[in-house]
């Protein structure tokens, strides 16, 4: 959740959608608890299975995958294919940076822990 807030900083479409989602979750947290934050990921995984499962014409396959991607990328449902790909590229970049930053931080913290004893 905290990492998502970092991702939610940019002014891109997916980032704004992520912010909205986080806000809703934040509000919902008071009542629901923290289980719902994984919703986005699980539903997207289902979408991925759906895309793979469809063994029909190429266009239909591609379409299904595009829809899966839409579910993966925050705010992607509203976007057309072209814009979706743009947002996906930006989202992937942001994720990559986030992951590497968090990894670095985790390593540093580990070291510090070991130093302290």
């Amino acid at each position, binding site marked *: *959740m*905290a*990492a*998502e*807030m*970092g*991702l*939610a*900083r*940019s*002014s891109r479409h997916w980032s*704004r959608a992520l*912010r909205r989602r*986080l*806000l809703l979750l*934040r*509000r919902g947290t008071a009542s629901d608890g923290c289980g719902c934050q*994984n919703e986005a*990921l699980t539903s*997207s*995984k289902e979408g*991925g299975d759906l*895309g*793979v499962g469809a063994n029909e014409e*190429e266009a239909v*396959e*591609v379409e299904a*995958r*595009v829809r*899966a*991607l839409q579910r*993966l*990328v925050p705010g992607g449902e509203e976007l057309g*294919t*072209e814009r979706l*790909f*743009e947002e*996906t*590229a930006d*989202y*992937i*970049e*942001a*994720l*990559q*940076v*986030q*992951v*590497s*930053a*968090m*990894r*670095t*931080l*985790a390593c*540093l*913290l*580990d070291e*510090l*822990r070991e130093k302290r004893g």
Partner: protein
Amino acid sequence: MEKERFFGVNWQSMDAGMPPEMNSGAAAADQLPNSFLNLGWEQPMHHDAHFESALSSLVSSPSSNTPAGNDSVIIGELIGRLGSICNSGEVSPPSRYQSASTSCYSTPLNSPPELNLSGMDHQQQGRGGVPVPGNQMAAGKFSPFAADPGFAERAARFSCFGPRSYAGLGGQFGLPEAGKLSRVSSSQSLKAVQMGASDNGKEVPVSEPERPVTETRSKFGGEAEFGNSQEASSVSDRMTAVGAENNARKRKAASKGKAKGAPLSSSNMNPPKPSDGENSDAKRCKPAETDGADKDAAVEPKTEENGDVGRKQGEEGNAKPPEPPKDYIHVRARRGQATDSHSLAERVRREKISERMKLLQDLVPGCNKVTGKALMLDEIINYVQSLQRQVEFLSMKLAALNPQLDFNMEALLPKDMHQALGQLPQQVYPLDMASTAFSYAQQPQGTPLQSIVTNSLDVQGSLNPLESSLRRPPTMQLPRLDGFTDATSQLGNLWEDDLQYVVQMGLGQSQGTAFSSQSMPVE
């Protein structure tokens, strides 16, 4: 100078009505560019400050090269640039245009230029390797310039051959070009036939000026002449985005070199995918690049001009369907494909999408071996999912590593959420995070933040904040984790500027005063 004299003879009739701004705009001491430029702009010159800038750049750069050996190069460049500029300014009615299929230098309707042409041809054949006659010939090309848009295209081709050929082949200057040009113009007429299959005879000449325009532009896109091939190819990409098989063919011919007699007819029948063709041609032209002094300046204004004209042409073209005034201006129907607006727009859209997919392919590792939309999308989806999972896992790990640290999550949400933020009770901690890779959870009572402020907040790019934050932690880890009281004071010292900026940016005015509270000791 001989050039002046040559032009003086021929420009007499066209001297009237020279736009004064052209005279003042031309900066060079060289009078040659002045004279023919004024001429050329007599009619097509309707407006535009960027014309002037392009021309002045054009004028000034040749004047910088004075040695005789480079004269031909200069002239070649001038021709090329004028070609592009004139093309972009060329909205004159097609009535003045004549089909180029007859000869390399088809005679336009104006009589004085005809004289030039005949004189030029003679010179061409009879020259003895002296650069000056070459200059004259090249300069003579400008005479029908205003009248004949086809000239622009020929001039462009001329120029693209020019720099290379001039180097060693001063005497051979005219002949290879003549041969090339005739071949090209014949292929042009062939294309005209193809394109005009469904059009009536009138429309063919109309489409012709447009095609040479795009071809010229694409020539410049791929041409080695221009120093910045990136810009040039972007111009060509913009102008001839889809269905630019003609352009791809032309550029192929140009890049293969004048020495080779690469037959255009063979390439006519093998149109590659336009975007691929363009890319490969641009790359091929790059190695053969000759250096150019002020070409960037010339290319930039041309880009705008081409865009303007392309849009006009898109609206005026009878042979083409109407184009929406977006980035892709010029679309050509490929041979054997439907030419109605729907399918063309559809094709444009598809090309855009495939372009984006290529971008994604670069981002996602291991996607190069995969071919086909579906498989690639599969890879992309898997990659995004794996990245998301990694983020999740790492955040949990970090939370586990530092359970004692908390942060006020509301305070970290960016400015879009002002309304929500305003309702929350505790907004004490203005420490915002450009990258919450370093954020920590905060206890609900509102204890001070222990998060790292990354930097002065590049909201647009998540990369910058993360990079700077990556730089910072090594220095700050220790103070922050060991003693909270120490941490906050040190934090305050280190990030004072950033925090102030953060406060203004992220949390609204109500948060502004909260900054002072940061120096309060942490519980």
